[in-house]
């Protein structure tokens, strides 16, 4: 609680709250009473903020994200997205971008991006127009006709991001989207994501294993403990924006990354 107070002082966003999580807990049903997965998670994400969640493997980061998306129900506590609970997926409020290539291999890049719109029966021209605009936004002009297997790993994740953005939801949840990419592509994609975020002003909750990625991208980093996952530290990233690659070599950057690393080590 003390950390939350620190944050609101340090980072006055002055806007409404996009995501509010209060005392969320989750227990996986099992033979001997169940496995506690998440414990007493409380967090508040202001609209337009970029929040990164880090933690050891199996700490329940992904589960938490699925609950924010309405894809999985929590055992206790509540999740509010723009003031309302989210018991089922709601593409009007939340777009999700998944690990690795979750693109449909039987659809072209453009058709993949149109997929969320076509589920709602949007008219053909509108679908095409918006998908084309998204393709341009993620820097893939002219690649719309390609199938996923004809795209590189980085390009596939660009298409995934475009698909997540096409319905223009205010919130974007990202589950280790760049985990499968090589180091260089990963850096480029992080930079690209910030550019896109800056253009669209979405609220982003981003889960990752990479501490460098966390510090580079975030306004705020939430550190989770090993299972049962709890939030053990909240770190405001005060680096100025736009972020540059050069910042990674600075003292401030190193200190922030060290602090996260110490927390994770203590917790696991």
């Amino acid at each position, binding site marked *: 609680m003390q950390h939350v107070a620190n944050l609101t002082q340090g980072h006055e966003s002055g806007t409404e709250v996009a995501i509010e999580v209060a005392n969320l807990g989750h227990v996986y049903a099992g033979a001997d009473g169940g496995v506690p997965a998440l414990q007493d998670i409380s967090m508040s994400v202001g609209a337009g903020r970029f929040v990164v969640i880090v933690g050891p493997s199996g700490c329940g980061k992904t589960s938490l994200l699925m609950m924010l*998306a309405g*894809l999985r129900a929590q055992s206790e506590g509540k999740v509010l997205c723009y003031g309302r609970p989210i018991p*089922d*997926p*709601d*593409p009007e409020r*939340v*777009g*999700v971008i*998944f*690990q*690795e290539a*979750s693109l*449909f*291999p*039987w*659809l072209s890049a453009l058709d993949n991006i149109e*997929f*969320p719109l076509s*589920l*709602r029966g949007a008219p053909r021209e509108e679908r095409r127009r918006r998908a084309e605009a998204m393709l341009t936004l993620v820097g893939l002009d002219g690649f719309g006709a390609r*199938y*996923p*297997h004809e795209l590189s790993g980085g390009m596939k994740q660009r298409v995934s991001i475009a698909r997540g953005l096409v*319905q223009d939801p205010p919130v974007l949840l990202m589950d280790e989207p760049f985990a499968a990419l090589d180091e260089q592509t990963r850096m480029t994609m992080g930079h690209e994501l910030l550019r896109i975020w800056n253009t669209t002003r979405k609220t982003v909750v981003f889960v990752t294993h990479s501490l460098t990625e966390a510090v580079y991208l975030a306004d705020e980093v939430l550190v989770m403990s090993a299972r049962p996952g709890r939030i053990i530290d909240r770190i405001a990233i005060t680096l100025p924006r736009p972020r540059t690659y050069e910042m990674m070599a600075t003292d401030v950057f190193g200190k922030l990354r060290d602090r996260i690393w110490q927390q994770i080590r203590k917790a696991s």
Partner: protein
Amino acid sequence: MSRSQIILTRLALLALVLGAWELLPRYGIINPLLLPPLSDVLAMLGNLLGRPQVHEAIATTAAEVLVAFVIAVPLGAALGVLIAESEYLGDIFKPIIFYVFSVPKSIFLPMFILVFGIGFQQKVAYAAFTTTFVVLMSAMAAVESVKADHVLVARSYGATRPQILLRIYVPSMMPILLETLRISMIFNFTGVMIAEMYASRTGIGHLIAGWGENFQMPQLFAGVIMLAAVAILFNEVVRFLEVRCSTWRT
């Protein structure tokens, strides 16, 4: 070996077999009453193809094969998905289907005659029955190839249950189902043939069975060539569909 060499070898082999078919009976090495020379068979084929009775038989057989296929494939696919997706139905039906699948279907033929008679419907019903099992088994396997991630993505965009079926399950299962199509076409054709040879008034199978009983060997072999041509035609149609539908295959 280069491509042209392979083709040449194939042609040579074909020429050898056809040449033997012509010459061995012609010189009495094989009894021409059992195996008439190729030229006699081809002459008979030409003769038969001029007869309205044969036209009718070919048209009937082709229609039976087609209708049975069009019934069996969607039916088998739908049942397979239903059983694979529902734990309850799976528990009940999987063993039953597994055992019935291993039983030769021709033992049910008398039942089909009792219910449907010996006309068009009986051929279609019996062939569709045998084919549905093949498609059903493969559809159950195809459901396993649907990626949980893809279903999750669709759900996150608010896809309803029917939408997930139509837009995720169907395309995910397509590669396996396409491979099944040709195999099920073979089962389907066999089903129609057996039903026609067993009891019928028309169809290529009926004609062949009759010629065999009457020891009309040139007619019999001409019938076999006719049948092979129709079977190859169907096989190629399915293969054409396969190629058309599998552009996205990875």
